């Protein structure tokens, strides 16, 4: 009975839904505020993401005729469920909910589900913009996923373990992965931006070209769930990077583990925010070029270097 309660608490409160929801809202606000300040604007008040979300939840839910309502409702839930499940295996602030050898692979697999749901969401609603956005999101998926995976392989190879908690612990004892493998860190960041469909890789939802991409026809609660799943994915992705490259919650004793972890996460978020105001949106073929001609060879090089370092 007590086990069940603990499991439920883990799932619903920490590090599960409630915590991630709060983090998602906080990160969304910080992101918007930083972008606003960099562009010389005042920016939104702290409750704006929450208010937006509640507003969306309260809105009327409309779907085009001829679409399957169940599929359209299931897809955002699937997307959200995948990222929430992934979050269980990611240590947060020194707290490890679950860990086993190979959970990095599971997390990466779970994180690659939302793009598929996103693509299917475009096809399920069937508008012109949605379908084009769906196709683009799939093309983009192929461009960033390979470099992203390869970039995340190198810390695992270096620390000799495929468990995220283990990698983080090893790094905090020795040296951060980002310092040994700066190239891998940058590649992982670029991959993460592509994964999160943030500017400058917001190609599948490019407003001025295809309105809102696959989400064009969604509204109300379903759209709110989509937004939430994307925002939670941002949080999970950042946590993953902090663990894999920045030594997780750090050496115990210096600073309390949650604070170290929070600072590192905000640092990664800041990098993402700055990147999104620094560039114009690329075209899909330009992104594919970048992914396959630049990022993938660099990632290979990175792995080769890691293996070589490990061998010597």
């Amino acid at each position: 009975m007590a086990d069940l309660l603990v499991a439920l608490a883990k799932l619903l409160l920490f590090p599960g839904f409630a915590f991630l929801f709060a983090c998602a809202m906080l990160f969304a606000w910080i992101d918007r505020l930083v972008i606003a300040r960099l562009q010389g604007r005042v920016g939104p008040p702290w409750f704006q993401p929450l208010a937006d979300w509640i507003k969306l939840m309260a809105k009327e839910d409309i779907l085009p005729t001829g679409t399957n309502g169940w599929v359209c409702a299931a897809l955002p839930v699937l997307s959200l469920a995948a990222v929430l499940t992934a979050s269980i295996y990611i240590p947060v602030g020194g707290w490890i909910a679950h860990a086993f050898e190979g959970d990095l692979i599971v997390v990466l697999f779970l994180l690659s589900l939302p793009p598929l749901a996103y693509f299917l969401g475009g096809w399920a609603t069937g508008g012109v913009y949605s379908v084009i956005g769906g196709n683009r999101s799939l093309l983009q998926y192929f461009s960033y996923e390979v470099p992203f995976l390869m970039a995340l392989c190198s810390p695992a190879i270096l620390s000799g373990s495929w468990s995220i908690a283990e990698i983080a612990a090893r790094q905090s004892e020795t040296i951060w992965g980002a310092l040994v493998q700066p190239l891998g860190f940058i590649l992982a960041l670029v991959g993460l931006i592509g994964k999160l469909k943030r500017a400058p890789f917001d190609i599948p939802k490019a407003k001025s070209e295809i309105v809102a991409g696959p989400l064009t026809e969604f509204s109300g609660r379903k759209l709110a769930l989509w937004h939430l799943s994307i925002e939670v994915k941002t949080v999970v992705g950042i946590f993953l990077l902090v663990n894999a490259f920045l030594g997780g919650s750090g050496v115990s004793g210096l600073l309390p583990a949650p604070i170290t972890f929070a600072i590192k996460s905000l640092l990664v978020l800041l990098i993402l925010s700055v990147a999104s105001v620094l560039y114009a949106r690329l075209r899909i073929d330009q992104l594919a070029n970048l992914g396959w001609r630049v990022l993938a060879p660099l990632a290979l090089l990175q792995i080769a270097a890691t293996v070589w370092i490990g061998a010597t």
Partner: protein
Amino acid sequence: MLRLRSIVYLLPDLVRTLFTRRSTVRYPFGPLELPPYFRGRVVVDAELCRGCGACVRDCPSTGLRLRHDGHGGFRLLHYPDRCANCGQCEASCRTGAIRLVGAYVAPTHAREELVETLVKGSGELKKRGTSQAHPST
């Protein structure tokens, strides 16, 4: 080097912007500055208005009307919803009675507020106006 700079070209500007004054305000919670010559609400100096109708004649958006009561008295009506705030009435007025002042016209739900009586002139005023030799409408 230039190639590398072109990848993060905007970064120095972004950092500079971070430490300069914000260019937006928290409207409607913050103050909004209006310049001294802002063409806003239409006001009329009742002392000066002679009811000649030059403003009504030149108004491009039929935002002004002159109503005569048949005994020399008149009312100058203004329709804020039609007004384009162009300032032509101010330019056309020969006595300098009309001015556009720096104030917004607030939106309204009330139908009555869509008509504004700017001036209610009596017959005497009208006579004084004609004696000074002008209206031509």
